Structures are given as structure tokens and as C-alpha cells.
């Protein structure tokens, strides 16, 4: 019997340990996935977990899917995605509809392959208010994958490998928004984040304090926790519980895990993660008021060249860049009525109407922006410039 040289053995052992350590939990999760037809009623919100697992929030169906995309071939380089000046036109050509009938609901980037995933519906519906979001207008039923060269393919949902968990006690299907007159159900899931083997899900429940943060173990178990969120909306001068978190992310502030969340019209609020407890109602700390008549659309955080940045895109404001040190320095939250702009400072970046935003790779973020000519562009932005 030939002996294995010590050096090779060490490498082998290290590799086995590394693989086991990184992927143990998710391999287990994928082993529990079923193969079959995935039937979401609305693909309302997306986020990637590890190993090419795409989490899909289905507001209308009140469920969360974990889809194994099988997309695990690492990207060959750190290049940007091919710039596209008319994304809706291009998708429309694939779907057989004019650009104006393409509605993009959410975007997520697979960090392994750097492929961009989009949920899309055909037909714009009755867009008659600047406060309507894509999920108010239609239910996304098509999942597309765009590779770096700009080629699209459809992610087939029949013969999919997935697991699914119900969102208990979602906001009732018949409830309407007070002044938008839209169905509140489309906000049962507004945003998702995967952190520390848990899936965090923001949205509306059927409780009196409707705004809720749910925490699901992954692999999914039947039990999950739902915490009701209350915030002080400084620009309105009152405590609010009905407006859902529109976009959020986990963030470590001074060694403690926080959830940073942005709301319509536009409070920026932090919660400490250890506050989240099933059945409890918790109050956030309002860090800033970022302006009226504005929807915060997407928020990301990344560390580039040793510096962490938080980037927020808006329907009616520029891109805002926050420094975590400024957030940490905001010791007291806003608890009295203030003007439309108050609190934590930020840097403006040209870029209004950025509909979707995602961390693309170590060099770039990717933005989807409504351009002055009315078309929807998709392009990467170098992190050195942010």
C-alpha cells in the first residue's frame, strides 16, 4: 500500500473540513428539497442564500420558497455585466410584448455565478399613482436569469428542486390600503434577507400592529417567530405600526447585530436583532428622516477596501450613501416631530429613479435605473466611485 505524502494528506483533510464547514447546513437543506412544480402566486421579493439557493417571497400565496437554482459555477472574473440601455425592450422581445408591458418586480444577484435573477410580469396594469409599486400592479410569474454577457434564459419552475414554508397569519386578502386603495396582501412579504442561517422576512401580518419581521430557520421548520414593529415617523410626528418595512438589511453596529430598515416617506430605522421575539411588539430607533413623497426602493451594504458602506436607492431622491460610523454615532433616535430631512448624514450620489440595486461582485454594484429617455437601463457601478 502506498502511503499518501503528508503534504497532500493535509491539503485533502483541510479541503474536506472546509467544504463540510461551509456547506454542511445548506447541503442538509438541499437534501430536504422536493422535486416538482413550484407554483408561486406572486414572486414578490427575492434574495440569494448560499450555494445558489434563491429565496422567493410569495405575498399573495403567503409562502416562502427556497429554490435550488443549481447555479453554482463560479464567475470567471470580476468584470461588470454588459451594459443594457433598454432592459424592458430586451425582456419584452423575449416574452413577446412591447417594452411598456414589461414589469420588473425584484432583482437578486447570485454571488457565486454573478448571474442576475429577475421576477417579471407581463402587462403594466393600471399605473395611476406615483405611490404604486410593481407588486401593487401585478403578480410576478416569470423568473429570468441574465448572465454577464446579457443573455436571458427562463428559470423553469416545473421540475424545480425547492422547499416551501407558509407565512402564517398574513394580512387578509380583502384588506385595502387606506388611500392607495390597493390590496394590502401584496405587502405580506416586502423584503427578505438571509443572515446566519436564518431568513428574515419583512411584511404585513393580520395583527393590529401589522408591520412584522418574521424569522425562519433554514432549513425551514414549521416554527418561526413574528415580531411586530413600531416606529416613530418623525416627519409625521407619530408612532406608526401599519406601514411595512420596504427594504432592510442586517448590519453589525458596535459589535451588535442590528436590522436597518427603510419605510415610505422615508424614515430610516434600526432594530437590534435580539429584540426579535415571537409575539412581541418592539420599537425601533428612528435614525433619520430622508424626505417626503419618496419610496425607499433597495438597500445594500458591502465592505470594499476595508470600508463598509450602506447604499440606499429611492423613487424620488438620489442614491444615498451612509457610513456605519455615522449610524453608530446616532445615540438617540428621533422621537419628536421633525422636518422632512433630519438625523444621520449621508452622501448624495447622482442616480435618481434607481429601481433596483444589488451587490454584484467585489468590484461592482449593479443598478437598474429609469433613464431620462424613459427607458430602463441596467449597468454596473464601480465601488471605487461610491
Amino acid at each position, binding site marked *: 500500500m502506498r502511503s499518501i505524502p503528508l503534504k497532500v494528506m493535509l491539503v485533502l483533510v483541510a479541503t474536506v473540513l472546509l467544504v463540510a464547514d461551509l456547506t454542511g447546513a445548506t447541503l442538509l437543506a438541499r437534501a430536504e428539497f422536493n422535486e416538482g412544480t413550484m407554483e408561486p402566486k406572486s414572486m414578490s421579493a427575492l434574495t440569494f442564500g448560499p450555494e445558489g439557493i434563491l429565496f422567493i417571497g410569495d405575498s399573495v400565496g403567503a409562502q416562502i420558497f427556497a429554490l435550488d437554482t443549481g447555479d453554482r459555477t463560479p464567475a470567471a472574473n470580476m468584470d461588470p455585466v454588459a451594459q443594457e440601455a433598454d432592459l424592458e*425592450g*430586451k425582456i419584452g*422581445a*423575449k*416574452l*413577446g410584448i412591447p417594452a411598456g408591458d414589461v414589469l420588473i418586480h425584484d432583482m437578486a444577484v447570485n454571488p457565486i455565478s454573478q448571474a442576475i435573477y429577475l421576477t417579471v410580469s407581463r402587462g403594466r396594469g*393600471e*399605473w*395611476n399613482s406615483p405611490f404604486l409599486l410593481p407588486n401593487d400592479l401585478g403578480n410576478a410569474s416569470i423568473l429570468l436569469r441574465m448572465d454577464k454577457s446579457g443573455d436571458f434564459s427562463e428559470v423553469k419552475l416545473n421540475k424545480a428542486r425547492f422547499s416551501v414554508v407558509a407565512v402564517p397569519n398574513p394580512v387578509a386578502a380583502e384588506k385595502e390600503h387606506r388611500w392607495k386603495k390597493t390590496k394590502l396582501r401584496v405587502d405580506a412579504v416586502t423584503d427578505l434577507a438571509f443572515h446566519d442561517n436564518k431568513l428574515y422576512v419583512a411584511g404585513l401580518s393580520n395583527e393590529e400592529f401589522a408591520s412584522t419581521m418574521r424569522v425562519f430557520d433554514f432549513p425551514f421548520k414549521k416554527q418561526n417567530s413574528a415580531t411586530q414593529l413600531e416606529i416613530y415617523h418623525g416627519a409625521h410626528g407619530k408612532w406608526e405600526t401599519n406601514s411595512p418595512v420596504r427594504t432592510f438589511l442586517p448590519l453589525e453596529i458596535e459589535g451588535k447585530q442590528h436590522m436597518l430598515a427603510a419605510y415610505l416617506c422615508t424614515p430610516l430605522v434600526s432594530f437590534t436583532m435580539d429584540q426579535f421575539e415571537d409575539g412581541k411588539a418592539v420599537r425601533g430607533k428612528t435614525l433619520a428622516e430622508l424626505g417626503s413623497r419618496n419610496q425607499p426602493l433597495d438597500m445594500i451594504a458591502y465592505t470594499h477596501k476595508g470600508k463598509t458602506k450602506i447604499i440606499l436607492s429611492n423613487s424620488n431622491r438620489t442614491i444615498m450613501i451612509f457610513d456605519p460610523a455615522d449610524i453608530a454615532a446616532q445615540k438617540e433616535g428621533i422621537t419628536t416631530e421633525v422636518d422632512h430631512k433630519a438625523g444621520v448624514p449621508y452622501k448624495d450620489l447622482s442616480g435618481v429613479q434607481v429601481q433596483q440595486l444589488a451587490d454584484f461582485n467585489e468590484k461592482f454594484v449593479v443598478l437598474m435605473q429609469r433613464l431620462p429617455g424613459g427607458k430602463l437601463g441596467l449597468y454596473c457601478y464601480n465601488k471605487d466611485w461610491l
Partner: protein
Amino acid sequence: MFWCCLALLLQPPATGEIQLDVTEQTVTVTGLSDADLALLRAPAPGHEAVRVYFDRASLAERGDQPTMMGRWRVVEQRLVFQGRFPFSRGYDHLLVVQPRADQAPSTWVFSLPDLPKPPAAKFVGLFPDSDQVPENLLRWYLFFDQPMAHGYAYQNIRLEDEQGRLMGSPFVVVPEELWDPARRRLTLFLDPGRIKRGVGPHLEHGSPLQAGRAYVLVIDGTWPDRHGSPLGADVRHRFRVTEADRRSPQRADWVLNPPPAGGQTPLRVVFDEPLDREQVPRFLDVADASGTFLPGDWWVQPDGRAATFVPHRLWRTGTYALHISSRLEDWAGNHLIALFDHALEENNVGVAPHQTFTRVFRVD
């Protein structure tokens, strides 16, 4: 020279005819040669032998665009393409068949005809439609029998004077446009900055309407409905302007005609002056002695001078109360506790907060 050589190298294009099946959402090519069919049964790897492009016009404009999602196969002697999604109506689709990469492509254009449009929407009236309105009229409501397109309101409404001269900027332009959810009622505000005395726009341009003069409100016939069909002919609403209304509605002067018990005879309320017809059902309620609101329907006289309430169940003997929100306004936007345009020195910085008044009546 180059093109000449290229043309010589290319094989002749495939021949055939196409058929569109609207039910199956397929396009079928028949009459292809056996050689082409053989090639299509075993296409060369990497060569997209059958391609369908959505909208030939946009393809020509862009020069290049992705092909439509769908599947094709050879069934007996036919080539069948089935789109992933239904074909859109009213667009030219381009089908390209090129069994071999070095063969000249054959192309066909197909389209599904547009469905016939429903009859165009009609303008069915406005409120107030009186031929006399006060100088400080605050708003009109315009009514249509079907949903209208969004984004065309202000370019299709104009105000002219008796000589047909266009009046400049009489209305507030709200880019979102103030439609009801069904988009059949538009609320059109006269510029409040020009109505309120003592503020800049009024001092500079005066009231949008002047007492003693006559105007024509013109609804343009080109205004499109939801399907893009124009309304048809222009509508011209002629009216005279009377003195400004500077008096709040006086609820003490309203006349209530209580109904008898045991039936569904309407409760009739006669106002002291014409009110905003669209607001009445929102701001009036009827409650029984326990304070429970009665489900029922309000009907407002077209001129806004009176309203009736019919409960969903029979009137029972007892004491009732008409609940009146102070927000209810007359045509000039004067509500029950303050005028729309009040002089600051007379009081009223910080007008009393809105409240609900009651008028008790008996049903016997």
C-alpha cells in the same frame, strides 16, 4: 465584390407557407423541402435554425434583439413553433427559418389582429352643471361612462371667455390627476391661490372667474379613454358667474322630513344652499338611538340642494340622529365651520378643529 461572392455561396432559401393557430398559439410552416426538413430534424449544434422575433418594427429600429421564447419541432412534414407565452395582438412577428447556417434565411411575417375596441367612452356630465356659479367656485367634477386614460386631462380641458379667448391657467394641474378609483370621475380644481384674496397669485392674476362675466368650459373631443378611443365631439358648457359665496352652509336652516316607521320611505334633508354633491354621502350619516350607524344609501339631488337617505332595513319607531361632519362644503369650498377664504385678521388662525354635529329626529 464581397456581397456578390457571399450571395453565390448561400444556398437558396427555404420555401413554404405559414399558418397561425390562435387557439393553440402556434405558427406552422408547410411546404418545406425534404432536404430542409431533414436539416431541421437534426439541426447543427449552436445554430438557431428557427427564430421568431417579436415586433418587426422594433427589430428594424434596434438592428438586433433577442428571439422570443418558445419551442419548435418538426411534426411529419410541418415545422411548428409554439411561443412560451401567447402572441401579442396587433404586432408584426417575424419568423425566420434557416435550416443551415450557410443558407439564405426565409422569412415570414405574421400577426394576430387587434381585438375590436369597445365603444368609446362618453362624457356624461359635470357637477355643478348649473348655468350660474359663484365667482369663488372651487371645483368641478367631470363624469364619464367608462374609464378614461391617465395623463391627458389637463390638455383636454380649457376655459374660454364669451369671445372665445382662452383663459390662462385657471386650474390646478395635479400631475397624478384626481380620478376616482374607477377613473370615471375627475375632480378639477380652480386655482385656490387665485381664489383666495390677499395671496400672491390672486393679487397678480385675479380670480379665475369674474362675477358678471360668462365663460365656456370646453371638454375636448380628442380626450382618449382607457383604450385610446377619443370621446368624440367637443362639449361646451356655458355659464355665468355670480357674486362670490362668502357664507358657510347653515345646518340650523336645513329642513328634515322624517319618514314614517315600518317602511323604507327616504329621510329627506333639504339644505340651505347647494352643497358639494359628491361629498354628501361621505359626510352625512344616520345613527339610531344607540349610536349605531344605519347601513343605507344616500341619493343627492343633481343640483346639490337636497338629499335622501334610504336605510337597508325598515325604519323602526324611535329617535335617530343625522350626523353631519363639519367638513361638508358648498360649491365654493366653504365648510360648516369656516369659509374657504377668510381674512386672517377676523380670527381664524387655527380654525376650530373639525367635528361632527348632530340633528335629532323621530320616526313614528
